[in-house]
């Protein structure tokens, strides 16, 4: 907020830093939110470069730190990064599938000051099958959960929901309960990146969602306060858009594995913007002064119907990335909004999902892996429209 006599209006101070430490991942989730063209990005930041980002972040006021990826455990300097974050006073959250978590590592994380671990059922369909048949990957999850409990971390589970696992909501909740979960987030797929490529395959029907929510409510009644369960509906089933990131460049700063700084996980594919790299600029300049972070602040950029909408300061016109991905213009209203002239793009996709079987001709599912990323890189970057500096 500007004070009297200040030369310019400084943007609000950010408090959330998400560090996507690596795009390496042992899993190949079809709903991954990493960019589809990650295979063409430059080298990952070094340990020292990450430590510099952490120091600059604290000076800027960042205090919540997410360590994600890819799979952050693929970085063998994670212990060093966590220890520096602890020293600097971040409240640090590790977002992991648990693959690669050993007692030696978690002991070092605890020692370094890691506050919180979120364990994801990233490969939930397979884990579910394994859970029912009590085989390999479930045992792996069991071991990770045991370590998390042993080191006195809260048991926080996250499972991405979609057409192929919503009918197993009860089993997923029972699996979480068996692992000692205190918090469970059943978050429906958001359709960006790999999930958008696979949208027709992943979009649930209304009936599936209603059943899953009823199952969740019944489960909540049974477990009471022992487990706190959040069920997040897909925004495609809403008529008002989400207040994405609480507004562009408002509280959240994402640093990608190669150092590109972004106002969210997805914005990198927006054309015409130059996203700064932490290798070349400090975070203060990036947040306060870089043109990219200022592009969609405030409401000057808005078009109708947002510009004159009484709700524009509530939802900020929704998500710029979704607006671009579906309508071709990031300044349009998020088409989730039923006031958007493009709302049919959402309702058409939802209508297709009500059919019991996927129609012939729907694209087969595309797994997130290096080979598919290289192929999608060639398709998505013909003219290098988005540059990074």
């Amino acid at each position, binding site marked *: 907020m500007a004070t009297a006599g200040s030369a310019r209006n400084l943007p609000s101070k950010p408090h959330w830093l998400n560090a996507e430490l690596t795009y390496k991942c042992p899993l190949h989730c079809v709903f991954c939110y990493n960019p589809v063209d990650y295979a063409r990005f430059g080298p990952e930041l070094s340990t020292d470069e990450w430590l510099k980002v952490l120091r600059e972040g604290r000076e*800027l*006021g960042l205090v919540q730190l997410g360590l994600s990826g890819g799979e952050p455990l693929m970085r063998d300097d994670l212990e060093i990064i966590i220890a520096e974050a602890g020293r600097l006073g971040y409240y640090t959250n590790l977002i992991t599938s648990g693959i690669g978590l050993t007692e030696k590592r978690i002991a070092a994380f605890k020692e370094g000051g890691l506050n919180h671990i979120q364990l994801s059922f990233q490969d939930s369909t397979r884990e579910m099958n394994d859970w029912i048949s009590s085989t390999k990957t479930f045992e792996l999850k069991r071991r990770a959960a045991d370590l998390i409990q042993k080191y006195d971390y809260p048991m926080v589970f996250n499972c991405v929901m979609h057409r192929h696992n919503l009918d197993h909501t009860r089993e997923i909740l029972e699996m979480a309960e068996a692992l000692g979960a205190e918090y469970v987030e059943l978050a429906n797929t958001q359709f960006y990146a790999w999930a958008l490529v696979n949208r027709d395959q992943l979009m649930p029907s209304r009936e599936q969602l209603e059943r899953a929510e009823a199952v969740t409510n019944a489960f909540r009644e049974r477990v009471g306060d022992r487990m706190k369960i959040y069920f997040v509906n897909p925004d495609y089933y809403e008529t008002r858009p989400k207040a994405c990131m609480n507004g562009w460049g408002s509280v959240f700063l994402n640093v990608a594995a190669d150092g590109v700084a972004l106002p969210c996980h997805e914005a990198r594919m927006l054309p015409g913007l130059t996203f700064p790299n932490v290798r070349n600029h400090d975070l203060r300049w990036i947040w306060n002064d870089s043109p990219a972070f200022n592009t969609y602040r405030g409401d000057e950029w808005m078009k109708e119907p947002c510009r004159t909408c009484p709700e524009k300061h509530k939802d900020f016109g929704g998500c710029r990335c979704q607006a671009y991905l579906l309508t071709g213009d990031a300044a349009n209203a998020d088409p989730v909004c039923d006031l958007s002239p493009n709302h049919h793009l959402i309702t058409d996709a939802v209508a297709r999902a009500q059919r019991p079987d996927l129609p012939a001709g729907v694209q087969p599912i595309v797994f997130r892996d290096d080979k598919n990323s290289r192929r999608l890189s060639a398709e998505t970057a013909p003219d290098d429209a988005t540059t990074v500096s």
Partner: protein
Amino acid sequence: MAQPKRIPFDQDTPIELAKYYRFQWEPAQELHVLLYPEGMVKLPGSAGEIMKRVDGTRSLNKIVAELERAFPGAPDLRADVTDFLEVAHGNGWIRTKSPE
């Protein structure tokens, strides 16, 4: 002077932060914050002054007495502290310290 309200914990039992919560001063924001998994609460001004004293050794009555010494003449201090701690307790930020 407002009468103390009924609060859901004993006024002479020490109170502490709930598990997984952390409270700290943020120099860049110039205020106190309460941090927890997936979230943060900003506690500017008097809220921060009260929470600073929630450390597992002080009870509500002790916190009030201390603040009355630190800010002599401040009106309705007891009511303010009680209101705030009631909200904090209701949100699950604080709990009474269980006897050793």
